[in-house]
């Protein structure tokens, strides 16, 4: 299956796998083996956790024990970080998988008189490495040395010596540094660390926090310069390794039923293209979720796995509501074909949602994904950031050949005006739902505004939602947007 991976140039540069989900993909195998990698970012961005995860996985999965030199007086934090990865720090230390040395420099206690070097640090590090035959080292964070040692000339020259020593010893090292305002790190460490620099960012915009990772430099590997969203979750860090690359996904020709036979009829008698993206818009109560649920039911009945992301209603609400219109989704949940995932749209930024969606898709390998609704994930402002994340999501789904359906709430008025252009341009098919009250009798209306690559009907039909499920009724001649031509239009569905 073609998969959008960052381009990797195969050289003789060996890599040390980090074991961090998505990061090994983004770096083409891990961090440069036997070299020093700089991880920089502001406080709270996840540098210590990333460094610790690199060590823990190294020890537990790849047979490489590691030394953690902690310069920041954070024994509790380290123990908590390790616990969050599912391990017990004291136990790993006892088993000689990890060695932790707390290096504390209290400048108020220290006076300087004459020349010195940092051999003491070297000796402690060498002693630790020897004690557990370590292959990996973390220095977290080197910035603390700058506040502790007054003579910065000596410190810088010693740091250079230290990094050379680490390479001579063939240790794969991660050094963390605090982000600077005009430079990558506050004290310009990136000048000494030539091989690999990773930058972590943690932004809070409109009270929603988003985390991003960027490979700033990776000598010998052609890496994407993109920012990858990442999450800090139950198993540590997960990086979402997808990028908005060129549109290289293959267009499939198989078709899948919409779940309503009459709607399939409107689409050349066959329904949607497999792997296409479908947008369903409408004002409140027009039947968007019912349409999505019905589509899901039909897919499950074919034996396909469906992943239903719900951002407004709880799964049990959906199950109950759909039962009232004759859709039994519970049986598919029980059979393990239908999986719900409920989240509040504001619980995290779009990147966070993207990361969760990516993770679940990788785990469950669905054929169909529903996102209901996408409304609050895409702010009306349609900033570049958001659009780029959305493009990645849709791109990813297409590459995985997943047929996706997105519902979107619109307010009264022309749907083409109301729906963000960012969203509709990514969609292959756009179904518009509406309700109206001609002659006082309320009715629901459906029409296919566009559907790329097929001669779809331009008519509007009544949408009947009853205990028997969803059906299409008569053709509506008085619908403002649809044509009045009977039968499928001879004009191919261009937009």
């Amino acid at each position, binding site marked *: 299956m073609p998969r959008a991976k960052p381009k990797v140039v195969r050289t003789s540069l060996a890599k040390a796998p980090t074991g961090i989900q998505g990061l090994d993909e983004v770096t083409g195998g891990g961090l440069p083996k036997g070299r020093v990698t700089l991880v920089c970012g502001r406080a709270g961005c996840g540098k210590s956790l990333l460094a610790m995860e690199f060590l823990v996985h190294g020890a537990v999965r790849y047979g490489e024990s590691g030394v953690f030199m902690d310069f920041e007086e954070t024994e509790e934090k380290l123990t908590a970080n390790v616990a969050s990865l599912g391990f017990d720090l004291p136990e790993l230390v006892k088993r000689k998988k990890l060695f932790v*040395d707390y*290096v*504390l*420099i*209290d400048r108020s*206690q*220290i*006076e*300087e*008189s*004459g*020349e*010195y*070097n*940092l*051999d*003491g*640090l070297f*000796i*402690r590090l*060498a*002693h630790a490495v020897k004690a557990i035959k370590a292959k990996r080292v973390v220095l977290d964070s080197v910035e603390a*040395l700058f506040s502790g*040692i007054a003579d910065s000339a000596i410190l810088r020259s010693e740091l250079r010596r230290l990094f050379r020593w680490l390479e001579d010893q063939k240790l794969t090292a991660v050094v963390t540094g605090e982000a600077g305002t005009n430079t990558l790190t506050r004290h310009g460490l990136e000048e000494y660390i030539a091989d690999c620099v990773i930058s972590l960012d943690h932004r809070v915009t409109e009270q929603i926090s988003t985390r991003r990772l960027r490979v700033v430099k990776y000598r010998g590997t052609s890496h994407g310069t993109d920012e990858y969203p990442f999450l800090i979750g139950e198993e540590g860090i997960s990086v979402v390794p997808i990028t908005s690359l060129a549109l290289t996904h293959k267009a499939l020709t198989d078709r899948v039923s919409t779940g309503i036979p009459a709607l399939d009829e409107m689409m050349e008698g066959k329904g949607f293209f497999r792997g296409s993206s479908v947008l369903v818009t409408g004002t409140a109560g027009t039947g968007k979720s019912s349409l999505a649920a019905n589509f899901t039911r039909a897919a499950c009945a074919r034996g396909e796995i469906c992943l239903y992301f719900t951002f407004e209603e709880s799964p049990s609400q959906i199950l109950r509501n759909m039962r009232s219109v004759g859709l039994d989704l519970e049986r598919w949940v029980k059979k393990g074909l239908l999986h719900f995932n409920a989240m509040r749209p504001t619980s995290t930024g779009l990147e966070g949602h993207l990361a969760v969606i990516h993770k679940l898709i990788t785990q469950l390998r669905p054929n169909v994904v529903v996102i209901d609704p996408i409304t609050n994930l895409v702010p009306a402002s349609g900033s570049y950031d958001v659009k780029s994340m959305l493009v990645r999501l849709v791109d990813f789904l297409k590459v995985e050949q997943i047929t996706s359906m997105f519902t979107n709430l619109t307010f009264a008025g022309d749907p083409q005006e109301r729906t963000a252009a960012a969203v509709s341009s990514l969609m292959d098919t756009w179904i518009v739902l509406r309700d109206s009250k001609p002659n006082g009798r309320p009715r629901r209306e459906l029409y296919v505004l566009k559907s790329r690559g097929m001669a779809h009907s331009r008519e509007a039909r009544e949408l009947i939602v009853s205990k028997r499920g969803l059906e299409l009724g008569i053709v509506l001649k008085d619908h403002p947007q649809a044509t009045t031509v009977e039968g499928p239009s001879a004009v191919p569905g261009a937009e």
Partner: protein
Amino acid sequence: MKKSSAEKGPAKKSPAKKAPAKTSASDFYRLRLYIAGQTPNSIAAIANLKRICEDKLKGKYRIEVVDLLEKPQLAKGDQIIAIPTLVRRLPPPVKKIIGNLSKTESVIVGLDLQPER
């Protein structure tokens, strides 16, 4: 051993002063110098330290030299990262000086080398 009270009348209370001429532990300096092999800085530090102590402490001191190349595990206890490092272990509080101790004034100030009266 209070010599003072025998010499004069009721002793004037002076909170800053302790009983004079008492051989107490507060006079005695225990110093530990951490080195890493016989490097020029380390050799200079040893020589400088001996000179300063002889000059200022007149025998009321003990210098212990710890070579971390031989005993690396001892670096942790006193949190040594720079070499040479001089640690004043007694009298409390602990004080540290890093460097080859060529700046005598800094050493005196850093170690607070006025023996207590």
